[in-house]
Protein backbone atom coordinates (compact mmCIF):
# COMPACT_ATOMS: atom_id res chain seq x y z
CA UNK A 1 0.00 0.00 0.00
CA UNK A 2 2.88 2.33 0.93
CA UNK A 3 4.61 1.74 -2.40
CA UNK A 4 1.35 2.45 -4.24
CA UNK A 5 0.96 5.75 -2.42
CA UNK A 6 4.61 6.63 -3.03
CA UNK A 7 4.46 5.90 -6.75
CA UNK A 8 1.25 7.93 -7.06
CA UNK A 9 2.93 10.86 -5.29
CA UNK A 10 6.00 10.61 -7.57
CA UNK A 11 3.76 10.58 -10.61
CA UNK A 12 1.89 13.69 -9.43
CA UNK A 13 5.20 15.52 -8.82
CA UNK A 14 6.51 14.55 -12.26
CA UNK A 15 3.36 15.68 -14.04
CA UNK A 16 3.41 18.92 -12.05
CA UNK A 17 7.00 19.58 -13.13
CA UNK A 18 6.15 19.11 -16.83
CA UNK A 19 3.10 21.35 -16.51
CA UNK A 20 5.26 24.06 -14.93
CA UNK A 21 7.77 23.95 -17.80
CA UNK A 22 4.91 24.04 -20.28
CA UNK A 23 3.42 27.10 -18.64
CA UNK A 24 6.79 28.87 -18.55
CA UNK A 25 7.44 28.22 -22.26
CA UNK A 26 4.00 29.35 -23.34
CA UNK A 27 4.35 32.46 -21.17
CA UNK A 28 7.65 33.34 -22.84
CA UNK A 29 5.94 33.01 -26.21
CA UNK A 30 3.01 35.07 -24.96
CA UNK A 31 5.35 37.90 -23.90
CA UNK A 32 7.21 37.70 -27.23
CA UNK A 33 3.91 37.99 -29.12
CA UNK A 34 2.96 40.89 -26.88
CA UNK A 35 6.12 42.82 -27.76
CA UNK A 36 5.60 42.11 -31.45
CA UNK A 37 2.00 43.32 -31.25
CA UNK A 38 3.04 46.49 -29.40
CA UNK A 39 5.51 47.20 -32.18
CA UNK A 40 2.83 46.75 -34.85
CA UNK A 41 0.50 49.11 -32.99
CA UNK A 42 3.19 51.82 -32.86
CA UNK A 43 4.07 51.35 -36.56
CA UNK A 44 0.42 51.53 -37.62
CA UNK A 45 -0.27 54.55 -35.41
CA UNK A 46 2.79 56.42 -36.71
CA UNK A 47 1.81 55.60 -40.29
CA UNK A 48 -1.64 57.05 -39.58
CA UNK A 49 -0.35 60.18 -37.82
CA UNK A 50 2.41 60.93 -40.35
CA UNK A 51 -0.19 60.67 -43.14
CA UNK A 52 -2.35 63.33 -41.52
CA UNK A 53 -4.12 61.45 -38.74
CA UNK A 54 -4.60 62.88 -35.27
CA UNK A 55 -1.70 62.47 -32.85
CA UNK A 56 -4.17 61.15 -30.24
CA UNK A 57 -4.52 58.00 -32.38
CA UNK A 58 -1.37 56.59 -30.82
CA UNK A 59 -2.82 56.76 -27.31
CA UNK A 60 -6.22 55.43 -28.36
CA UNK A 61 -4.72 52.50 -30.28
CA UNK A 62 -2.45 51.62 -27.36
CA UNK A 63 -5.38 51.83 -24.96
CA UNK A 64 -7.34 49.32 -27.10
CA UNK A 65 -4.27 47.07 -27.32
CA UNK A 66 -3.67 47.19 -23.58
CA UNK A 67 -7.32 46.41 -22.86
CA UNK A 68 -7.36 43.44 -25.26
CA UNK A 69 -4.13 41.99 -23.85
CA UNK A 70 -5.39 42.28 -20.29
CA UNK A 71 -8.49 40.25 -21.21
CA UNK A 72 -6.66 37.44 -22.95
CA UNK A 73 -4.82 35.60 -20.19
CA UNK A 74 -7.39 33.63 -18.24
CA UNK A 75 -5.27 31.84 -15.66
CA UNK A 76 -4.14 34.89 -13.72
CA UNK A 77 -3.93 38.67 -13.64
CA UNK A 78 -2.48 40.22 -16.77
CA UNK A 79 -1.90 43.98 -17.02
CA UNK A 80 -0.22 45.90 -19.83
CA UNK A 81 0.49 49.56 -19.10
CA UNK A 82 2.04 52.08 -21.45
CA UNK A 83 3.41 55.59 -21.19
CA UNK A 84 4.02 57.83 -24.15
CA UNK A 85 7.42 59.50 -24.30
CA UNK A 86 7.16 63.13 -23.22
CA UNK A 87 10.89 63.84 -23.20
CA UNK A 88 11.71 66.50 -25.82
CA UNK A 89 11.62 66.37 -28.81
CA UNK A 90 8.75 63.90 -28.27
CA UNK A 91 5.28 65.03 -27.35
CA UNK A 92 2.59 62.46 -26.56
CA UNK A 93 5.00 59.86 -27.90
CA UNK A 94 5.32 61.48 -31.32
CA UNK A 95 8.14 63.43 -32.93
CA UNK A 96 7.56 64.81 -36.39
CA UNK A 97 10.40 66.90 -37.78
CA UNK A 98 10.23 67.72 -41.46
CA UNK A 99 13.07 70.18 -41.75
CA UNK A 100 14.37 72.49 -44.42
CA UNK A 101 17.95 71.42 -43.74
CA UNK A 102 17.68 68.14 -45.64
CA UNK A 103 16.50 66.03 -42.70
CA UNK A 104 13.05 64.63 -42.09
CA UNK A 105 12.04 62.47 -39.13
CA UNK A 106 8.78 60.72 -38.25
CA UNK A 107 9.06 58.91 -34.95
CA UNK A 108 6.95 57.36 -32.20
CA UNK A 109 8.15 56.16 -28.79
CA UNK A 110 6.33 54.41 -25.97
CA UNK A 111 7.38 52.57 -22.81
CA UNK A 112 5.52 49.48 -21.66
CA UNK A 113 5.28 47.51 -18.45
CA UNK A 114 3.69 44.11 -18.45
CA UNK A 115 2.72 42.36 -15.25
CA UNK A 116 1.34 38.86 -15.08
CA UNK A 117 0.73 36.79 -12.02
CA UNK A 118 -0.87 33.42 -11.63
CA UNK A 119 -0.47 30.42 -9.33
CA UNK A 120 2.99 29.50 -10.60
CA UNK A 121 4.44 32.46 -12.48
CA UNK A 122 5.13 36.12 -11.84
CA UNK A 123 6.24 38.23 -14.76
CA UNK A 124 7.19 41.89 -14.49
CA UNK A 125 8.67 43.07 -17.76
CA UNK A 126 9.49 46.54 -19.03
CA UNK A 127 10.23 47.30 -22.63
CA UNK A 128 10.07 50.19 -25.03
CA UNK A 129 9.22 50.53 -28.69
CA UNK A 130 10.79 53.27 -30.79
CA UNK A 131 9.83 53.43 -34.44
CA UNK A 132 11.63 56.02 -36.53
CA UNK A 133 11.71 56.71 -40.23
CA UNK A 134 14.37 59.19 -41.29
CA UNK A 135 15.09 60.72 -44.65
CA UNK A 136 18.21 62.71 -45.56
CA UNK A 137 18.39 64.63 -48.80
CA UNK A 138 21.19 66.54 -50.46
CA UNK A 139 20.86 68.35 -53.76
CA UNK A 140 23.05 70.00 -56.35
CA UNK A 141 22.36 71.70 -59.67
CA UNK A 142 24.18 72.76 -62.82
CA UNK A 143 23.06 75.59 -65.06
CA UNK A 144 22.75 74.18 -68.56
CA UNK A 145 21.76 77.40 -70.33
CA UNK A 146 19.95 80.53 -69.21
CA UNK A 147 17.47 79.52 -66.50
CA UNK A 148 17.58 75.84 -67.42
CA UNK A 149 19.08 73.80 -64.66
CA UNK A 150 19.95 70.15 -64.23
CA UNK A 151 19.03 69.25 -60.65
CA UNK A 152 20.16 66.13 -58.79
CA UNK A 153 18.65 65.05 -55.47
CA UNK A 154 20.16 62.26 -53.37
CA UNK A 155 17.72 60.66 -50.94
CA UNK A 156 18.69 58.33 -48.09
CA UNK A 157 15.91 56.44 -46.30
CA UNK A 158 16.40 54.85 -42.89
CA UNK A 159 14.12 52.70 -40.75
CA UNK A 160 15.20 52.70 -37.12
CA UNK A 161 18.69 53.90 -38.11
CA UNK A 162 19.10 51.14 -40.72
CA UNK A 163 19.00 51.76 -44.50
CA UNK A 164 15.57 50.87 -45.82
CA UNK A 165 13.66 50.79 -49.06
CA UNK A 166 10.99 53.35 -49.84
CA UNK A 167 7.56 52.45 -51.16
CA UNK A 168 7.08 55.80 -52.83
CA UNK A 169 9.22 58.91 -53.39
CA UNK A 170 7.88 62.14 -54.82
CA UNK A 171 10.28 64.97 -55.64
CA UNK A 172 9.19 68.60 -55.76
CA UNK A 173 11.00 71.76 -56.80
CA UNK A 174 10.00 75.31 -55.99
CA UNK A 175 9.17 77.74 -58.74
CA UNK A 176 7.98 81.18 -57.60
CA UNK A 177 6.16 80.06 -54.43
CA UNK A 178 4.70 76.95 -56.08
CA UNK A 179 5.91 73.42 -55.57
CA UNK A 180 5.99 71.45 -58.82
CA UNK A 181 6.51 67.75 -59.45
CA UNK A 182 9.05 67.09 -62.22
CA UNK A 183 7.74 64.68 -64.85
CA UNK A 184 8.78 63.16 -68.17
CA UNK A 185 8.92 66.60 -69.79
CA UNK A 186 11.61 67.45 -67.24
CA UNK A 187 13.58 64.30 -68.16
CA UNK A 188 12.83 63.09 -64.68
CA UNK A 189 14.58 59.89 -63.64
CA UNK A 190 15.12 58.23 -60.29
CA UNK A 191 17.78 55.59 -59.68
CA UNK A 192 17.26 53.02 -56.91
CA UNK A 193 20.54 51.70 -55.53
CA UNK A 194 18.75 49.01 -53.50
CA UNK A 195 20.31 50.09 -50.22
CA UNK A 196 18.02 52.94 -49.23
CA UNK A 197 19.81 55.41 -51.51
CA UNK A 198 17.98 57.00 -54.42
CA UNK A 199 19.18 59.66 -56.85
CA UNK A 200 16.57 61.72 -58.68
CA UNK A 201 17.49 63.95 -61.62
CA UNK A 202 15.50 66.41 -63.66
CA UNK A 203 15.83 69.50 -65.83
CA UNK A 204 13.75 72.60 -65.10
CA UNK A 205 13.58 76.29 -65.90
CA UNK A 206 14.19 77.96 -62.58
CA UNK A 207 15.09 81.67 -62.78
CA UNK A 208 16.21 81.89 -59.15
CA UNK A 209 19.77 81.01 -58.17
CA UNK A 210 18.34 79.41 -55.03
CA UNK A 211 16.85 76.06 -56.03
CA UNK A 212 14.69 74.51 -53.32
CA UNK A 213 13.77 70.85 -53.51
CA UNK A 214 11.62 68.59 -51.39
CA UNK A 215 11.38 64.81 -51.10
CA UNK A 216 8.16 63.21 -49.85
CA UNK A 217 8.78 59.60 -48.89
CA UNK A 218 6.51 56.74 -47.84
CA UNK A 219 8.46 53.79 -46.50
CA UNK A 220 7.53 50.11 -46.68
CA UNK A 221 5.69 50.46 -43.35
CA UNK A 222 3.47 53.24 -44.83
CA UNK A 223 5.17 55.85 -42.64
CA UNK A 224 5.33 59.23 -44.33
CA UNK A 225 8.26 61.62 -43.99
CA UNK A 226 9.42 64.64 -45.93
CA UNK A 227 12.52 66.80 -46.07
CA UNK A 228 13.36 70.03 -47.85
CA UNK A 229 16.78 71.26 -48.92
CA UNK A 230 18.35 74.05 -50.89
CA UNK A 231 20.26 72.84 -53.91
CA UNK A 232 23.94 73.76 -54.15
CA UNK A 233 25.34 74.97 -57.46
CA UNK A 234 28.23 72.90 -58.76
Amino acid at each position, binding site marked *: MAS*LLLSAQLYILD*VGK*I*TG*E*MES*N*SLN*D*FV*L*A*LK*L*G*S*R*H*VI*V*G*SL*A*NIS*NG*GQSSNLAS*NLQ*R*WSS*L*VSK*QYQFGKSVLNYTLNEVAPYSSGIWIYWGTNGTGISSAYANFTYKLSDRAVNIDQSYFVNITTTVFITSSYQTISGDTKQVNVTINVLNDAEPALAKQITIYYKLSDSWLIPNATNNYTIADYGNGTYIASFVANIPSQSVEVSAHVIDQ*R*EIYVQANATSIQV
Partner: protein
Amino acid sequence: MFDQRGQIRIIEAFLAIAVIFSVLLISVTFPSSPNLERQKSLANLGTQALIKLDTNGTLGNLIMQENWTTIKQALDILLPTGVSFNLTVYDENMQPINSQTIQNSNLLGREAVSVQYICATQNLNVQFFVLRLQLAWTR
Protein backbone atom coordinates in the same frame (compact mmCIF):
# COMPACT_ATOMS: atom_id res chain seq x y z
CA MET B 1 -9.88 -22.77 14.61
CA PHE B 2 -6.21 -21.68 14.19
CA ASP B 3 -6.05 -23.47 10.83
CA GLN B 4 -9.08 -21.48 9.51
CA ARG B 5 -7.45 -18.13 10.55
CA GLY B 6 -4.25 -19.10 8.73
CA GLN B 7 -6.20 -19.83 5.54
CA ILE B 8 -7.89 -16.42 5.68
CA ARG B 9 -4.47 -14.73 6.03
CA ILE B 10 -3.21 -16.60 2.97
CA ILE B 11 -6.31 -15.63 0.95
CA GLU B 12 -5.88 -11.99 2.09
CA ALA B 13 -2.23 -12.03 0.97
CA PHE B 14 -3.19 -13.44 -2.45
CA LEU B 15 -5.92 -10.84 -2.80
CA ALA B 16 -3.45 -8.04 -1.97
CA ILE B 17 -1.01 -9.35 -4.57
CA ALA B 18 -3.83 -9.56 -7.13
CA VAL B 19 -4.86 -5.96 -6.40
CA ILE B 20 -1.26 -4.70 -6.77
CA PHE B 21 -0.70 -6.57 -10.04
CA SER B 22 -4.03 -5.48 -11.50
CA VAL B 23 -3.24 -1.84 -10.67
CA LEU B 24 0.18 -2.17 -12.29
CA LEU B 25 -1.36 -3.84 -15.33
CA ILE B 26 -4.00 -1.13 -15.70
CA SER B 27 -1.45 1.70 -15.32
CA VAL B 28 0.80 0.16 -17.98
CA THR B 29 -2.02 -0.61 -20.40
CA PHE B 30 -3.98 2.66 -20.06
CA PRO B 31 -1.74 5.65 -19.34
CA SER B 32 -3.97 7.90 -17.27
CA SER B 33 -2.56 11.26 -18.40
CA PRO B 34 -1.99 12.75 -21.86
CA ASN B 35 1.56 12.95 -23.15
CA LEU B 36 2.35 16.41 -21.82
CA GLU B 37 5.81 16.65 -23.38
CA ARG B 38 4.39 16.08 -26.86
CA GLN B 39 1.60 18.57 -26.20
CA LYS B 40 4.11 21.11 -24.96
CA SER B 41 6.22 20.85 -28.10
CA LEU B 42 3.08 21.08 -30.24
CA ALA B 43 1.90 24.25 -28.49
CA ASN B 44 5.38 25.78 -28.87
CA LEU B 45 5.47 24.88 -32.57
CA GLY B 46 2.09 26.54 -33.09
CA THR B 47 3.03 29.75 -31.29
CA GLN B 48 6.40 29.95 -33.03
CA ALA B 49 4.71 29.52 -36.42
CA LEU B 50 2.29 32.37 -35.69
CA ILE B 51 5.09 34.61 -34.37
CA LYS B 52 7.15 33.95 -37.52
CA LEU B 53 4.20 34.79 -39.72
CA ASP B 54 3.51 37.95 -37.71
CA THR B 55 7.12 39.22 -37.50
CA ASN B 56 6.89 41.79 -40.28
CA GLY B 57 3.14 42.28 -40.11
CA THR B 58 2.30 39.67 -42.77
CA LEU B 59 -0.24 37.86 -40.60
CA GLY B 60 -2.24 41.04 -39.93
CA ASN B 61 -2.16 41.99 -43.62
CA LEU B 62 -3.40 38.56 -44.70
CA ILE B 63 -6.26 38.71 -42.20
CA MET B 64 -7.19 42.21 -43.40
CA GLN B 65 -7.24 40.91 -46.98
CA GLU B 66 -9.28 37.89 -45.81
CA ASN B 67 -6.70 35.78 -47.58
CA TRP B 68 -7.44 32.58 -45.65
CA THR B 69 -5.92 30.33 -48.33
CA THR B 70 -2.51 31.99 -48.02
CA ILE B 71 -2.65 31.78 -44.22
CA LYS B 72 -3.38 28.05 -44.51
CA GLN B 73 -0.53 27.59 -47.00
CA ALA B 74 1.86 29.53 -44.74
CA LEU B 75 0.96 27.36 -41.73
CA ASP B 76 1.39 24.25 -43.89
CA ILE B 77 4.96 25.39 -44.54
CA LEU B 78 5.77 26.64 -41.04
CA LEU B 79 4.43 23.61 -39.17
CA PRO B 80 6.16 20.25 -39.50
CA THR B 81 4.55 17.42 -41.41
CA GLY B 82 2.49 15.19 -39.16
CA VAL B 83 0.74 18.12 -37.47
CA SER B 84 -2.94 18.81 -38.04
CA PHE B 85 -4.21 22.29 -37.39
CA ASN B 86 -7.39 24.30 -37.34
CA LEU B 87 -7.22 28.09 -37.08
CA THR B 88 -10.08 30.39 -36.11
CA VAL B 89 -9.69 34.15 -36.40
CA TYR B 90 -11.76 36.39 -34.11
CA ASP B 91 -12.16 40.14 -34.21
CA GLU B 92 -11.70 42.41 -31.18
CA ASN B 93 -15.19 41.48 -29.96
CA MET B 94 -14.42 37.76 -30.22
CA GLN B 95 -16.65 37.23 -33.25
CA PRO B 96 -15.21 34.65 -35.68
CA ILE B 97 -14.39 36.31 -39.00
CA ASN B 98 -12.82 33.63 -41.18
CA SER B 99 -15.45 32.79 -43.77
CA GLN B 100 -13.78 29.52 -44.68
CA THR B 101 -12.11 26.93 -42.50
CA ILE B 102 -8.35 27.22 -42.15
CA GLN B 103 -7.29 23.65 -41.54
CA ASN B 104 -5.22 20.94 -43.17
CA SER B 105 -7.12 17.94 -41.79
CA ASN B 106 -9.83 17.09 -39.33
CA LEU B 107 -8.88 17.11 -35.66
CA LEU B 108 -11.83 14.98 -34.56
CA GLY B 109 -10.83 12.21 -32.21
CA ARG B 110 -7.29 13.49 -31.80
CA GLU B 111 -5.62 14.78 -28.67
CA ALA B 112 -5.41 18.48 -29.50
CA VAL B 113 -3.80 21.51 -27.88
CA SER B 114 -5.03 25.05 -28.29
CA VAL B 115 -2.86 28.13 -28.69
CA GLN B 116 -4.23 31.66 -28.42
CA TYR B 117 -2.44 34.51 -30.19
CA ILE B 118 -3.19 38.24 -30.27
CA CYS B 119 -2.37 39.99 -33.50
CA ALA B 120 -2.22 43.71 -34.27
CA THR B 121 -2.07 45.00 -37.83
CA GLN B 122 0.47 47.65 -38.68
CA ASN B 123 -1.48 49.51 -41.33
CA LEU B 124 -3.02 52.99 -41.19
CA ASN B 125 -6.09 51.82 -39.27
CA VAL B 126 -4.75 49.54 -36.59
CA GLN B 127 -6.97 46.52 -35.99
CA PHE B 128 -6.71 43.68 -33.52
CA PHE B 129 -7.47 40.01 -33.94
CA VAL B 130 -7.41 37.01 -31.66
CA LEU B 131 -6.32 33.75 -33.26
CA ARG B 132 -7.08 30.34 -31.83
CA LEU B 133 -4.91 27.62 -33.30
CA GLN B 134 -5.75 24.02 -32.47
CA LEU B 135 -3.07 21.46 -33.16
CA ALA B 136 -2.74 17.70 -32.99
CA TRP B 137 -0.21 15.13 -34.03
CA THR B 138 -1.55 12.96 -36.81
CA ARG B 139 0.48 9.99 -35.56
